[in-house]
């Protein structure tokens, strides 16, 4: 970056001079390296809802390290956060000491920004054996540097409404429900058809076809890329099969024709207009919040047809930070099994540290809102079966266009599945082509 600017230095100086006159009042409030008491200020830059602060983890850490103060910044949406993070990374400027990266972006960050990130694999306090091997590998470069430490993962279950199931003549017990579709997403489709035939008025079996698509593709090892890093989604039978099944939900009229994470989706939770949704562990809190107190003990959690993963995150430490060693120590502590277990207990973020899975806070966890469901047992089992998915740098673009262009056309605009697929492929081809 700096090299690029050699030619512009003169102009920059000129600008700086003019600026000093006009912007004097604005200057001097930049970020500092220490607070008045001489403690080290570590900044943590996050997106969405990690809940470190709410779970008391920062307080706990500063009790252990009284010489440290932690400040957190957060941007709710990853669509805003990730471009900002990339811009800051490539200019070595404006970064927090610790930054979060979503799983769908981690391959790209690892492939293109590794030189700007600390190798946390060698940081003190980090034990490789604590983590799920596949999670560890996702943030490791080809030459063996691990630039990100896993926070949570998103093992999936299916959340369902007991009241609607009962009215449709389906079982309501979570084990019996799980058996309805165990082993095959097509059986989930079949259950949907049974539901449709006796569906309570104004309700659908599932929220969206895109949700089903995400859930199924999260369960195959080879998804959009193969081992050599080639884009294979078009010819990959696993993706096509997932597409066909998900599209069948739309063409059979089993969906509420919603788009996930939109206000309409939230409102549909509040009104209970769909009976099931594929839910990774981190979504439980979302459902609880959107469905509200009125739906307490109405929703429940059953095992998904097949183990699958959706989402999860990493922490990285940029090299341009002022306190790299302290930042690495903090990142290591935040992702250590005990802290991950605590976060699962408080927020439902399922630990990527396998060493945490056996801890009572995880293994024995139950969720009162979801009929006291043994979520520790359900998600631990799901996590154990999750295949090692091959990630690629453009996973986000591929997944998003399959869901929000292709499948959404089928689901909401009534296009034929082949047409939706073609539309998605055209958009993705355009997006991947440099």
């Amino acid at each position, binding site marked *: *970056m700096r*090299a*690029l600017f050699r030619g*512009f230095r003169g*102009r*920059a100086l*000129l*600008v700086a001079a*003019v600026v000093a006159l006009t912007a004097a009042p604005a200057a001097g409030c930049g970020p500092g390296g220490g607070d008045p008491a001489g403690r080290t200020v570590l900044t943590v830059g996050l997106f969405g809802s990690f809940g470190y602060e709410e779970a008391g983890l920062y307080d706990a850490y500063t009790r252990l390290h009284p010489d440290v103060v932690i400040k957190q910044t957060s941007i709710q*949406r990853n*669509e805003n956060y990730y*471009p900002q993070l*990339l*811009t800051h990374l*490539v200019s070595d400027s404006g970064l927090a000491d610790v930054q979060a990266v979503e799983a769908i972006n981690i391959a*790209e960050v690892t492939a*293109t*920004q590794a030189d700007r990130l600390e190798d946390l694999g060698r940081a003190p306090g980090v034990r490789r054996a604590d983590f799920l091997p596949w999670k560890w590998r996702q943030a490791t470069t080809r030459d063996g540097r691990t630039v990100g430490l896993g926070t949570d993962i998103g093992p999936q279950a299916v959340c369902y409404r007991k009241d609607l199931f009962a009215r449709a003549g389906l079982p309501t017990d979570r084990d019996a429900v799980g058996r309805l579709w165990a082993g095959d997403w097509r059986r989930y489709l079949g259950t949907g058809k049974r539901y449709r035939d006796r569906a309570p008025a104004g309700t659908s079996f599932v929220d969206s076809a895109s949700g089903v698509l995400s859930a199924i593709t999260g369960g195959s090892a080879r998804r959009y890329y193969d081992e050599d890093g080639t884009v294979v989604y078009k010819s990959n039978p696993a993706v096509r099969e997932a597409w066909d099944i998900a599209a069948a939900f739309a063409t059979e009229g089993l969906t509420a024709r919603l*788009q*996930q*994470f*939109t*206000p*309409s989706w939230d*409102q*549909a939770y509040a*009104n209970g*207009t769909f009976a099931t949704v594929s839910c990774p562990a981190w979504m439980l809190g979302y459902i609880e919040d959107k469905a509200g107190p009125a739906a307490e003990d109405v929703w429940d959690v059953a095992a998904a047809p097949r183990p699958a993963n959706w989402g999860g995150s990493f922490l990285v430490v940029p090299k341009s930070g002022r306190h790299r060693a302290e930042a690495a120590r903090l990142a290591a502590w935040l992702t250590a099994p005990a802290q991950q277990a605590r976060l699962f207990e408080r927020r439902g973020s399922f630990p990527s540290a396998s060493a945490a899975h056996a801890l009572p806070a995880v293994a024995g966890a139950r969720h009162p809102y979801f009929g006291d469901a043994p979520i520790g047992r359900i998600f631990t089992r799901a996590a154990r079966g999750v295949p090692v998915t091959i990630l690629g740098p453009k996973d*986000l*673009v591929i997944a*998003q*266009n399959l869901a*929000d*262009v*292709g499948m*959404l*056309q089928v689901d*909401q*605009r009534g296009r034929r599945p082949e047409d939706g697929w073609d*539309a998605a492929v*055209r*958009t993705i081809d*355009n*997006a*991947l082509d*440099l």
Partner: protein
Amino acid sequence: MLSGTTAPVSGPRAERTARRGRTHRWAARWSPYAYLAPFFVFFAAFGLFPLLYTGWASLHRVELTAPTDMEWVGLRNYSRLLTDEFFWNALRNTVTIGLMSTVPQLLMALGIAHLLHHRLRGSTFFRVVALTPYATSVAAATLVFVLLFGRDFGLVNWALGLAGADPVDWQNGRWTSQFAVSTIVIWRWTGYNALIYLAALQAVPGELYESAALDGASRWRQFAHVTVPSLRPTILFTCVVSTIGATQLFGEPLLFNGSAGATGGSDHQFQTLGLYLYEQGWVNLHLGRASAIAWAMFLILLLAGAVVALAGAYRRRTG
């Protein structure tokens, strides 16, 4: 199109003393640049530099993940736009949304300015009210309109239902979605343009109306023959600004799409050029291609400007 009714100030007044005349001439020659200097210094750093950088980047293959790794590709980023269905789709949408939002907006603004120009009780109140939508950020406004235009639980569909109409899937139809996006634009910008017209109305010399009234011109003729000609520079101004704004329309269609990124709907039915540029640059991370789209937008605007200017010149010549 931009030269209006300028008249020179530096006309010679020979009867002044020679010394003063020299100073005058010197000042007349150089002072314009002194007036322009502050603007252009900042412009060089924060306007021209990004523009040139963008132009340079548009001739390269360059990704946001490594903006300094540039690979020369010549005009390829431009030539591929010719066959890029998404670019043409976005261009079409930009034009239709632009027309749907700009034309009613400016007409209504003119009308509102006319209303506000009356002697009013509570004129301050109405002016503040007219500017309220503009004070609302794009994000806040779009957030509200997304809820209002909701398919299942939106207020608009509920009201339609009361009137006996079927609910409309605003977001999924090409025209309905473009209508909804235009509504947000119109809501936010009409009062703003009205205020600009109002400021110009205040500057119209009263004698013009008086003499028109003496000639027996009706209210409407006064409006057509005094108000509109007096406002011509301002109307031109708002047209240019609105057209540029419409060409760059971005925030509303982005946020109208909820969480689904920059696709502008599942069928790209309300993806504008600004949004497509954003998708290429910030989602697909292709800085070079995004830069080419930006420059294409820039050139299209210049072309449109040239056409308007030529048409104006032609009309003046043929009288």
